[in-house]
């Protein structure tokens, strides 16, 4: 096992790539079209029980009693658990370098209910219907407890406390220079307040899993992005961490919603108590009600510039609604703070990014992770600035784009290429001439640029391990702990291994997501998987190849300086043309006692961040892109039709171009929903409509053909110079659409989602009040 720092980003390959860079499919996709892939709910064991969560109906209360008598008497009920049955009833979060959060989240509510949907009890029964019936019969008696339902209110000194330690979850301060003074002195200042809403991941596969005891190992087979939660499960049960095994299934979507614990602790407790296999599947409505959401943000921006539109200072205040428990709030608000000024110069800057507790469903990870919400704000500011100084939106951005070598507000130097001028111009060129208004609809065009981090913050000292083994017949086995949420995470790793070792894709098998059996690679989040696990596979494959090389050279009778090609299941040299099969190579290795398996760990470059100064190392790198869109607005109804949508990102290197396109298109679709129609509506902590019928994700007719443009101009830090693409494409959508709608109606909407009703209101306001010059 070896450790190494960041792989040299500028990969020089003499020979053309044969597998990386091709749009080859993989076995898991074949299973998906066959319908034979076993998702978490597609798994059953004999004697299996069915688990159900009893959830709080009110957002804030004190529990006075829990009566399980009637429920327990229902035939077929095997167990009912409450807080007292949980050995360690606390899930604690490491709050991003500030030490452990003083606030812990109980697995089952003990004396207080802090959000509607909070788990209070668990039921296991022989049939799922009985479990549901029993859950309804559990009587949770409560008395009112004052709650607080908006973060602004929560941060007031006299607000009711969600937790005894106060309502502030975290406050990040990032700054350099004297932004206040710079703003005072700036010839031009544009201000804006922007509001984003609470949204749901709305993956089609609800949370699900099966747990059982295997020997003395508690085993969970669950739809999760993070199999490392096994340790958390062990802690909750009071078991040695080695006695819990989590097997992650291929997910029907994750997007951050399966990043924190979902069914795992409930399953584990029921399995441990009943000693029988237990399945738990959350209903869609339960998922909409009670599972973590994206943070709603309120963002106040003051941007100061000179008369040529060059930004001099930014003062940014972000307040995020963290809901009732911390979860990943500190990290989300951190990512927001680091990227709040956008991919633009900000010589003097003051960013304050705060998350507050409220008595609502907790907010945590969702694709984009804080760095998404801020795009809606900073791109609006850029367009406002353009108008204020008489520049076009492209000119003002060109004047301010960060470049390789510039520093961002945290003081870090960007050490890869910033392809924003290319992305912006390419996207707009692809749109071509503006369409004319037609049939009474008003056409508008907008675009937005963004930067999205890939890889975890450096102070986590991230790592990923990979094991590769060549089998005697020359086929390849890959073992790596990643989880696959549908974006071809596993498939791309195969391509990388095959590229280096020359094994054909169809003779490669990858085993993933098993905390007992696969080397840990970290969870699939933070757009880290290609960067971390891709590099782990690349590194392991390269080192293995290095080890094989002396054997190969001998076999082929080659000179040590000859270039050996590994491709198509063969090793070969030219002049003279000689080749051998990988099977022969492995046989020879066996003969010589050379190990054809290898395990390495890839370590990301670590770094320190000082929360007091707001300076230091944050994210390893960013993916840059621009989305450009043409819309038509119906001035009578406010309906927005997207005529064309172009999404351009520099991914450094596309391991699988078709799949990269698919990631971009999928991100755009989610971004459009976020921009125009999705909202989890909660009033005073009560969810007003937890039906899928009311949660409006885009259908095929709500989207045009999404046109992805994949640029490979600036190598990143991933394998072969790749950059992550999972999150970047969701983030610019709302801003691009806001710009396009503004262009059509004459006013920029600053609150999400931009529903037809909101658009109509803005349009009428523009007509009466003259608009804000957006058109």
């Amino acid at each position, binding site marked *: 096992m070896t450790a190494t720092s960041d792989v040299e980003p500028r990969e020089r390959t003499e020979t053309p790539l044969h597998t990386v860079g091709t749009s080859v499919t993989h076995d898991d*996709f074949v299973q998906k079209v066959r*319908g*034979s892939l076993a998702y978490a*709910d597609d798994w059953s064991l004999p004697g299996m029980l069915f688990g159900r969560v009893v959830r709080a109906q009110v957002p804030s209360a004190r529990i006075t009693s829990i009566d399980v008598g009637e429920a327990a008497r229902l035939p077929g009920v095997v167990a009912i658990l409450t807080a007292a049955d949980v050995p360690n009833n606390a899930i604690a979060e490491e709050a991003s370098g500030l030490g452990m959060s003083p606030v812990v989240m109980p697995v089952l509510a003990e004396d207080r209910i802090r959000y509607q949907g909070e788990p209070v009890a668990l039921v296991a029964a022989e049939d799922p219907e009985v479990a549901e019936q029993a859950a309804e019969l559990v009587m949770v008696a409560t008395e009112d407890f004052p709650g607080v339902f908006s973060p602004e209110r929560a941060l007031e000194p006299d607000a009711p406390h969600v937790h005894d330690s106060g309502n502030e979850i975290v406050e990040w301060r990032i700054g350099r220079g004297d932004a206040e003074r710079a703003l005072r002195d700036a010839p031009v200042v544009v201000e804006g307040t922007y509001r984003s809403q609470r949204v749901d991941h709305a993956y*089609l596969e609800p949370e699900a899993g099966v747990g059982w005891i295997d020997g003395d190992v508690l085993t969970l087979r669950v739809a999760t992005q993070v199999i490392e939660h096994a340790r958390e499960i062990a802690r909750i049960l009071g078991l040695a961490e080695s006695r819990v095994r989590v097997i992650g299934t291929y997910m*029907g979507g994750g997007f951050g919603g399966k990043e924190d614990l979902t069914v795992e602790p409930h399953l584990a407790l029921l399995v441990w108590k009943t000693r029988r296999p237990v399945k738990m599947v959350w209903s869609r409505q339960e998922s909409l009600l009670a599972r973590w959401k994206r943070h709603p943000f309120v963002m106040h921006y003051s941007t100061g510039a000179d008369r040529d539109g060059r930004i001099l200072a930014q003062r940014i205040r972000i307040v995020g609604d963290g809901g009732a428990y911390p979860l990943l709030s500190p990290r989300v608000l951190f990512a927001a703070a680091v990227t709040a000024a956008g991919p633009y110069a900000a010589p003097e800057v003051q960013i304050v990014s705060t998350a507050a507790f409220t008595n609502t469903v907790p907010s945590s990870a969702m694709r984009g992770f804080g760095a998404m919400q801020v795009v809606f704000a900073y791109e609006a500011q850029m367009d406002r600035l353009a108008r204020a100084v008489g520049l076009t939106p492209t000119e003002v951005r060109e004047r301010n784009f960060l470049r390789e070598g510039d520093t961002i507000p945290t003081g870090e130097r960007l050490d890869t290429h910033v392809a924003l001028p290319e992305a912006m111009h390419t996207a707009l060129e692809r749109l071509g001439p503006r369409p004319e208004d037609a049939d009474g609809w008003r056409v508008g065009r907008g675009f937005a640029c963004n930067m999205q981090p890939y890889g975890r913050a450096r102070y986590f000292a991230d790592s990923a391990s990979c094991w590769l083994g060549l089998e005697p017949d020359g086929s390849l086995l890959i073992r790596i702990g990643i989880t696959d949420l549908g*974006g071809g995470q596993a498939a791309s790793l195969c391509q990388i291994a095959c590229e280096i070792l020359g094994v054909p894709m169809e003779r490669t098998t990858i085993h993933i997501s098993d905390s007992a059996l696969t080397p840990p690679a970290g969870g699939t989040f933070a757009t880290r998987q290609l960067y971390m696990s891709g590099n782990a596979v690349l590194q392991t494959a390269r080192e293995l190849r290095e080890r094989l090389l002396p054997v190969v050279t001998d076999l082929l009778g080659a000179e040590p300086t000859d270039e050996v090609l590994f491709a198509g299941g063969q090793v070969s040299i030219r002049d003279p043309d000689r080749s051998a099969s990988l099977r022969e190579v492995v046989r020879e290795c066996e003969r010589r006692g050379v190990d054809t398996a290898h395990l390495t760990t890839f370590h990301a470059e670590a770094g320190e961040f000082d929360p007091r100064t707001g300076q230091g190392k944050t994210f390893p790198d960013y993916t840059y892109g621009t989305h450009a869109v043409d819309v038509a607005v119906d001035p009578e109804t406010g309906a927005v039709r997207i005529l064309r949508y172009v999404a351009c990102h520099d991914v450094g290197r596309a391991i699988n171009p078709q799949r990269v396109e698919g990631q971009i298109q999928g991100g755009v679709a989610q971004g459009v929903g976020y921009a125009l129609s999705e909202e989890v509506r909660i009033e005073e902590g009560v969810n007003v409509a937890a039906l*899928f019928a009311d949660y409006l994700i885009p259908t*095929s007719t709500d989207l045009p*053909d999404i046109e992805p443009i994949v640029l490979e101009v600036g190598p990143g830090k991933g394998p072969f110079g790749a950059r992550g693409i999972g999150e970047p494409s969701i983030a610019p959508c709302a801003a691009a659409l806001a710009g396009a709608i503004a262009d059509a109606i004459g006013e920029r909407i600053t609150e999400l989602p931009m529903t037809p009703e909101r658009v109509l209101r803005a349009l009428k306001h523009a007509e009466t009040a003259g608009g804000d010059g957006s058109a």
Partner: protein
Amino acid sequence: MRKSPIALTVNGRTREAWVWPHQTLLQVLRDVLGATEVKYGCGEGVCSTCTVLMDGESINSCLMFAVQAAGRSVTTVKGLAQGEELHPLQESFLAHDAAQCGFCTPGMLLIAHEFIGRHPQPSREEIREALAGNLCRCTGYTKIIDAVESFAMDRKDPASTPPAGAAPR
């Protein structure tokens, strides 16, 4: 309350099951008959991951009770392939990368199959409309429409249909 026996055809095979009246067809297909390729996504008839063909017509299996399917014929996505050989529509999905997480894919394939059967030469917009009831959260639909369109065009010209099992490069 007692279970009653029903017999129905699933992908051409007669299957029998003892079911309660309150069990939906979705539940029985998945939990009793092992047809886990039919998915639970919402239980409201909104997402359409539970799509099956009932006597050749697409329905939401979460909105029908199993007892109503007695004597009827159900086709799931597993009824498309011929053993190992994928249906050309499935091949087209693979060739166009039309599945990401794959959860909507069974329903999408069935609805596309039904639609093209009824409208052999659709426009791209007609395909887009036909898929509007099947939610997808991963792909943005573009590649799904590409796959269906390509399948429809290849059907007109069978010579251009890719052979079963071809892995695209």
